[in-house]
């Protein structure tokens, strides 16, 4: 079956102690395991800050939300600051429907996330 051109890039060179997970494409039930694996692999290193950059994610369902809730819990246990940035309106709306927008630290863009 042909794969869609969707990737998850992990960047470690933006600032000391900051790791950025940058998925692209839709995050649904078929792709959230991939995002979960990428975040888990970053969290094993227990970085001071984890940024999830959603600027190239046009769609997310509750499986993506669940992945981020799980990541937030692990980050709190590891004392890693987790920040989400770059949300499109359609993605933001699911956070609001689930009333999770207050649970996460959400900023507008990557610059703000790195400096937050």
């Amino acid at each position, binding site marked *: 079956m042909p794969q869609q051109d969707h990737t998850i890039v992990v960047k470690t060179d933006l600032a000391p102690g900051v790791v950025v997970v940058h998925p692209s494409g839709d995050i649904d039930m*078929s792709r959230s395991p991939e995002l979960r694996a990428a975040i888990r692999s970053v969290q094993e290193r227990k970085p001071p800050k984890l940024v999830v950059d959603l600027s190239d994610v046009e769609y997310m369902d*509750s499986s993506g939300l669940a992945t981020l809730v799980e990541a937030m819990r692990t980050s709190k246990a590891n004392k890693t600051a987790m920040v989400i940035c770059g949300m499109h309106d359609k993605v933001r709306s699911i956070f609001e429907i689930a009333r999770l927008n207050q649970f996460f630290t959400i900023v507008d863009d990557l610059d703000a996330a790195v400096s937050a």
Partner: protein
Amino acid sequence: MRDRPHIRVELLSNPVYLCGARELVASVSKRLGFDDLDCSKIALAVDEALCNIIRHGYQRRTDGQIWISIWPLEEEGGARACGIRIVIEDEAKQIDPEQVRGRELSDIRPGGLGVHIIREVMDEAVYEQRQPRGMRLTLVKRCQNVETPSRLAQATAAASLKRHKSPR
């Protein structure tokens, strides 16, 4: 079901086909006059319903059958579309419709949000058991200030007229 669906598709319970179902529902919703954000929310509700069927109904089997049927929701007299009705059916494990409910949102943990999202996004969400097996979910979303494209309005009116004239 009261009348023939305007669209009916069958898909397997494989998560790779969720994107196709979302695109279909969002495109049709757009043509029925919903704005972009509502189209995305309607597609989200259908996605969540399909995920629940795949995860809980078919217990992640990828060869189960799912049917999605779509009708324009008509105003009294059938002159124009004023929303969308979507019916999702399966042959998966049956559950008591009374037991279908989302979790408390204050209980923040991964999972269990699908039913809450469906009920929050749609105006109606009704679960029923199908006979002899499977479940049926009927979703309705009404559209505010809809500007139905003229060709669609004509098709909707023609279908309504034909239905009202046809002998029982």
